[in-house]
């Protein structure tokens, strides 16, 4: 038997094994992502309640936009929530990361303390915060009383409820986003700072001309995923307020859930999901386009 040239065989083997190894993801992607996405797009053109299906074209979309005030309310709530929590979260976690990147004794203990809230399961955290916001004897109102401010009915007064959720989101600024910033900070070579100091750059100048540009890819990552995350806030609102009072904390995902799994308006819920997808895709593309102006990749060529 004559063997073929081994180079060619090695490449074939590479092709085969490489594909084989990524198969779990590829198959899962087809079954759990591509297939359902297409079905949900089709479903959004139907009126479907688990028993009867009727093709209605774009009726679901039209009715959402023109006849459903709760759709707009949930969109507005969610947009406001995202507008407040995404920038606050990014700057907050950047500040915490800068602080935890200082070479001080016991910094690992502090990292742990700041990270711990992110280890608290969402349901437990919602229950804890429900009680932090308790109007009669929650600790937030006690702290307010301590400095002489009146009690606030955080979760009962519709004017404050959304802000209560924003405050609660700040508890997570020491979490995964901060760790990603910290990893980015530790990836900046010390030699950059040394060179800058030789040129007489102060702390602020170093931050502005070295730290920020070097962190910009990480910042971009956090911005894109932060927005996606903020638009999907669900568990806390489901547990703490069920969307109330007067739908002040009815977030978009909660309204999709209600339509889909409580009212079984599966076509309408699918249409809502696709609108959400379109919004997020739009924002992501805008961010990618803008990123060319402010995100610096090392070596640029990559």
């Amino acid at each position, binding site marked *: 038997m004559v063997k073929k040239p081994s180079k060619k065989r090695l490449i074939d083997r590479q*092709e085969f094994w490489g594909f084989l190894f990524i198969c779990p993801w590829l198959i899962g992607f087809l079954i*759990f992502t591509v297939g359902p996405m297409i079905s949900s797009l089709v479903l959004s053109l139907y009126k479907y309640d688990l028993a009867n299906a009727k093709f209605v074209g774009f009726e679901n979309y039209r009715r959402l936009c023109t006849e459903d005030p709760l759709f707009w309310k949930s969109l507005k709530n969610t947009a406001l929530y995202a507008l407040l929590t995404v920038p606050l979260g990014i700057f907050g976690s950047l500040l915490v990361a800068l602080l935890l990147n200082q070479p001080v004794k016991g910094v690992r203990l502090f990292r742990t303390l700041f990270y711990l809230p992110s*280890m608290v399961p969402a349901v437990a955290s919602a229950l804890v915060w429900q009680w932090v916001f308790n109007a009669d004897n929650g600790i937030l109102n006690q702290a307010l009383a301590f400095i002489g401010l009146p009690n606030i009915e955080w979760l009962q007064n519709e004017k404050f409820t959304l802000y209560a959720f924003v405050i609660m989101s700040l508890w997570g600024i020491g979490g995964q986003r901060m760790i990603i910033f910290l990893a980015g900070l530790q990836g900046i070579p010390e030699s950059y700072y040394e060179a800058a100091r030789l040129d007489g750059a102060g702390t602020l100048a170093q931050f502005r001309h070295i730290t920020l540009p070097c962190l910009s890819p990480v910042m971009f990552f956090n911005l894109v995923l932060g927005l996606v995350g903020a638009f999907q806030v669900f568990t806390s609102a489901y547990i703490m307020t069920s969307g109330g009072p007067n739908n002040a904390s009815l977030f978009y995902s909660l309204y999709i859930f209600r339509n889909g799994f409580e009212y079984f308006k599966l076509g309408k819920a699918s249409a809502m999901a696709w609108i959400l997808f379109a919004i997020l895709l739009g924002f992501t593309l805008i961010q990618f386009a803008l990123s060319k102006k402010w995100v610096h990749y090392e070596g640029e060529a990559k």
Partner: protein
Amino acid sequence: MKRIPTYILLILGSITFSIPFIWTISTALKSSSEYAKEPSRLIPAHPDFSNFAKAWTALPFPTFVWNTIFVTVICTIAQVVTGSLVAYGFSRFTFKWRNFLFFTMLATMMLPGQVTQIPVFLVWRKLHAIDTFFPLIVPAFFGGGAFNIFLLRQFFLSIPRELDEAAMLDGAGFVRIWWRILMPLSGPAVASVALFSFLSHWDAFEAPLIYLNSPEKYTVSIGLRMFQDSYGTNFEQVMAASLVHILPTILLFFVCQRYFLKGITLSGMGGK
């Protein structure tokens, strides 16, 4: 001397972040009568552990805990194993469309879960799998999420290829290289992925809420919600029950902590 402001900020920050925790523990240790009298007292005058016992027996909590452990452990193992296999494929092999597929995978991180939720639910319903653990467990066997795969791939890329080649000369196959070389050398990344994966399943709320109907199948998250419905006004008991839910994640975090930050830092999140 220069460090003093840093310390002050660090200490103030940690206190602020810990307050909800500390108060949770303190409330859980108060008896109902003490809570009614002095809800704001930080250290309970008479620490009382009966709330834990009450929470534990009021609902079938042991069943909830067991269900959650069952689902979480299977999913974590499945995610680590399949995720690292996929990461191995993406980091060590060249094949057609590799880069395209890799970027597609990263792009799925931006996809809101709601887009696929309903059709997936309808399929499980067709398969008569509602109120079973299958819908919660099966998806974990398919690579376990883009972020985890990305983290592992970055870590694998930092391991010199010469090690693979040396092993190959010794007659090791690809699977052996993955299991005997890459995995043991990737402790920090594997620990981070395991931790994320454990937390995400221990924590899962929406999926169990959609798929589980009968109380004997409930996970702790859903059980806690039920507990809140029936005992919502007994804050001290709700807090005790919440602590039962929180404790395992905190313990696991302390066990993995040594590797955890390293796993992400070395994966070069900043470089990409």
